[in-house]
C-alpha cells in the first residue's frame, strides 16, 4: 500500500515511500531524517512541529505525508544555508530561548511573519507566535527579538 511521494525539502528534491496513513511529522523525522520539527502534543495545540509548506506555516502533526507530494517544505535546517538569518541573529542577541524545544517552531512562525511584514509591531509578533507554546521564557525575549529584526532593518533603510 506504500506510495512514493516526491517533495522539495529544504531546497533538495527528495523521494520517499509512505503509507497513506503516515503523518507528515513522522515521515519527516523518521524517514527523511529532519529532526528539528518536534513532537509535543500530536493534535495541533503546541506548535513544536511547525514547518513551512510552500512558505506557509503548517502543523506537520495534522497533515498526512501524501498531501505534500509535489510541494515544498522548509524547516529550520533549510533556513540558514548561507549563515544565520537576521531573525536567528536577533534571537541569539535577545537570549530568546531557554530549553529550546519550541525554538524550531517559533523560528518558522516568525520567519513567515517577517516575510509578509518586515517590520511587525509587538502585537503582530505576539499574534504570529500565539500558536507556538513556550513554557520557559514568558515569550518576552522572543517577541523583542522578532520586533528587533524589523527595527534593525528599518534603521538600515
Amino acid at each position, binding site marked *: 500500500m506504500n506510495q512514493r511521494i516526491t517533495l522539495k525539502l529544504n531546497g533538495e528534491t527528495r523521494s520517499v515511500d509512505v503509507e497513506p*496513513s503516515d503523518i507528515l511529522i513522522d515521515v519527516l*523525522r523518521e524517514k527523511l*531524517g529532519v*529532526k*528539528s520539527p*518536534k*513532537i*509535543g*502534543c*500530536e*493534535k495541533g*495545540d*503546541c506548535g*513544536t512541529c511547525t514547518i513551512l509548506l510552500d512558505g506557509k506555516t503548517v502543523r506537520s502533526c495534522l497533515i498526512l505525508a501524501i498531501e505534500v507530494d509535489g510541494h515544498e517544505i522548509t*524547516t*529550520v*535546517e533549510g533556513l*540558514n544555508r548561507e549563515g*544565520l538569518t537576521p531573525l*536567528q541573529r536577533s*534571537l*541569539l542577541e535577545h*537570549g*530568546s*530561548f*531557554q*530549553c*529550546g*524545544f*519550541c*525554538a*524550531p517552531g517559533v*523560528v518558522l512562525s516568525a520567519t513567515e511573519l517577517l516575510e509578509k511584514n518586515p517590520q511587525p509591531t509587538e502585537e503582530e*509578533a*505576539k*499574534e504570529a*507566535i*500565539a*500558536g*507556538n*507554546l*513556550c*513554557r*520557559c*521564557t*514568558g*515569550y*518576552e*525575549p*522572543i*517577541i523583542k527579538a522578532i520586533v528587533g529584526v524589523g527595527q534593525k532593518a528599518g534603521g538600515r533603510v
Partner: protein
Amino acid sequence: MTQLNFVGESSKRIDLLAKVTGAATYVDDLDFGGDLLYAEIVESPYAHALIKSINTAAAEKVPGVVRVVTGKDFPYRFGLYMQDRFSFPTDRVRFVGEQVAAVVARDAKTAKRAAKLVKVVYEELEPVLDLTEALKDNAVLVHPDLGNYTRCPWFFPQAGTNIAHWRKTRKGNIEQGFKEADLVFEDTYTVPRYTHCAIEPHVIVGLYDLAGRLTLWSASQSPYTQRNVIAQALAPLGLSHKDIRVVTPYVGGGFGGKAGVSMEIIGAALAMMVKSHPVKVRWTRAQEFYNTYQRQGVVARIKLGVKKDGTITAIEHSLHWDAGGYVEYGANVVNAVGLSATGPYRIPNVKIDSVCVYTNLPPSGPYRGFGYSEFHFGLESHMTRVAQKLGMDPVEFRKKNAIREGDTLAYGAKMNPSGLHEAIDRVAAEIGWGKKEVSKDPDKVLGKGFACFWKAPAMPPNAASAAFMKFNEDGSLNISVSGMEIGQGFLTVMAQIAAEILTVPVEKIRVELPDTDRNAYEWQTVGSHVTWGCGNAVKAAALELRGKMFDVVRRALGFDEQTLYLEDEKVKCRARPAFELPLRDFVINGIQTPHGNFIGGPILGSGMFMPEFTSALSDPETSQGGHPNVHYTVGAAAVTLEIDRKTGKMRVRKAVLAVDAGKAINPELVRSQVVGGVVQGLATALYEDIRYSRKGKLLNANFTDYKIPTAMDVPDEIVPVIIEVPQPDGPFGARGVAEHTMIPAAAMVANAVEDAIGLRMKSLPITAEKVALESSGISYDDVKGATVGFCFMGSADTYKFHAKGAAKK
C-alpha cells in the same frame, strides 16, 4: 572584593546557537537504527481496583509484537524517598491511567493495535478521592502495606492509615503566643493540582545489550538519581551501578516533572525484557498530564496571632495534601513545607502540621516551587487580610515581621543572610504601592497586590555535586558535570564560574551534557541548587587546575608559586613583571627546559561539594535539632491587575519581582528566570484549571482544555529586580533563584483582585469565569458541575483539620 571579569556579566548563553539553528538534539531526535522497538501502555481505567487477571495471548499473536510485559514479569518497586511505586503493579491499581502492561512491537502502530487486545479483569474498589474520607477511621487504604515500605529516615508514615508522612514543627509555646496576641485570625485556603506542561514530553530509550549493559537515553533532570533509583529497583536482576549508564542530551523543559524517576522505570523494565533491542517509550501529551508527577492539591488552615502594633506572635499552619497514589517523591514536598510554612517571617511561636495523604489520583511529586507556591497562596493572602484587620498597610506589616539574618527558624537553625527588606522596599517603589490607579475605561478596574516569598532547596543532607575539568591544546576548556541544562542557563553559568578563576573566556569553554559513564556526579538538577552546589564544585575544580599549572611553572622554571597569578589566559608573576606564559603553550604539552625535556603534562582536575553542615535528624514531634535546609532565597513581588467588571477577564498591566540572588553570576539569566517564572506563576492563578471526574479520571489532559499562556496572555510589563546580599558559602556569593520566581504569583493576584473589586478568593485558580460569577453573587462551587480540581469535595470552611482517628496509630 577583587574585581570580577566574567561573573556578574550577562554572557550570552552557550547553548543558544544550537537551539536557534535546530541543531540541539533531544532524546527523541536520536537515531537507533532499524532494530528500534516501540512500546504502547495498557492503562487502568479505574482509580482504585484489584487486578484479577491479565490475558496477553491475543496481543502476543499480532505479527510484529515482540513482547508483552506485565507486573508478573517485572514486579519491582521503586522510589526516591520511599519505595511505594511499581514499575508495573502486580495486584492493585491506584489511579486512572496507571500502567498495567506494555506491548513492545516493531512499530508504534502495531503496538497500539495490540495493546487494545490485552484483556485485564479488575475488581473495582471504592476509590479514595476525598481528603475527609481518606483520613477517617477505617478509611479505605490506598497502600495496605505502607508499614513495610523502605523509606528515608525522615519520613513518618502511619501504617494502617492513608498518612504517608506527617511533618510536625513546633517552636516556642503556641498557646502562649495566641494569648499574647491582640488579634487572632483564622481561615482556610485551597489549591488544586497543577501539571508542569514542559513542551517536550517524557521519553526514554533503553538498551540492555548482550554483554549485560543497560543504557538509558533519557529526557531527565536527574541522570545520576535515575541511575541510582533504577539500580536499586533492578538489583534483584543482578545489575549494579556500573552496569547502568544514563545519557541525557538536551531536555525540553523540566520544572520538576523530569526529576527523579517516574515513567522512566518502564523504559528500563522493557529494555530488560527485550534484551539486545533498543526500545522507546515516549509519552503522549495526555500521559504527560497523568502519569509522571503532578503538583499536589492542598487544603490549608492558617491561624495567625498579632499584636496591635503588627508584631506576629504565633502561627498555626495545618496543611493536608492530596498526594495521589504514589508519594515516593511527593512526600518530600510535604516535608519541605512542614519545615518552612511560616513564610519569610520572624515568628516566635510556631505549630505546623503538614500531612501527606494517599489518594487515588495520579502520583504527586516535584513541581517548580516544591510546595512553596501552594502554601504561599494561603499565607500571603492571609498576611494581607490580617494587615487590613489591624488597619495597617500590608507592605508595612510584612516589613515589620520580615525575617533577618540570624533569626531562629521554625526548626531551630539560624536564618542565612537575606535581602528581604530591600526587596520589599524596591518592589513597593517600582509598583507605586499606595498610589491608587484608575482605568480610563469605565468597565475596567485596577487593583494592586503584594506578596513576599522564600524557598530553600529540599535535599537530603548528602546531596553532592562534582565536576571534572580539562584543558585542550589551544587553551580551551572542557567541563563535564551532571547538572542538567533544563533551560535555566546552567551550562553558561558553570562556564562563567570557571572563566572567572582561569581567565579563559566563556566562548572557549564547552560544558558537556550528562552521561553517567563520563561526567562527574550530580545528585539532581532540582531545588534551584545547581548554581550554588555544582557552581561550588566547578569553582573547586578550576582552583585545582590553577594550582596544578602553578606547580608546573614552579617545577619547570623555579618560580615561587606564591608570586604567580592568572591574567588574560596567561600565567604571570608578580616578581617578574615581564614574564607571561600563555596557557595554550603548556597546558597539554608541558614546559620545555634548557635540557630539552618537558615538565608537566595535560592539566586536568576535579572538584566536589557537599553541604556538610546539614542534617535531617531531628525530633519527629517538633523538628527541632536538625539543620535540614542549606539556606533560603527570599524576595517580594507585586502586580497591577486590570479586571473587566462585566466579564471578569483580567490583564496583568505590570508585575514586579525582586529576588535575592546573593550574587547574580549572569544577571540576564536571572532576569529571564523572573520573567518566565512570573508568567508560569500567573498562569496557575489566571488560566490553568485542572478537572477530574468524580471517579478520578482527568478530564482535561491536553492543551485545548488545560490552558497555559500563549504569547497573547503575557503581562504588559514585567520588571525583574535583582538583590545581592551574598551567600557566604555560595560561589562568588550566589544562591539559586529559578523556582522562586513563580511562588508569590497566585497570592499577589488574589490580593490584587480584592484590592480592585473587594472580592476575596480563597481557592485557586482565579479564572475570569470565577471572578465574573462570584462578583455577581453566584457561588462558583454551585455551578461548576460535578468536577474537582483535587481530592476535596466539601466546604473549606467546615474542613476538620485534626484527623485524630487516623493520627492515633
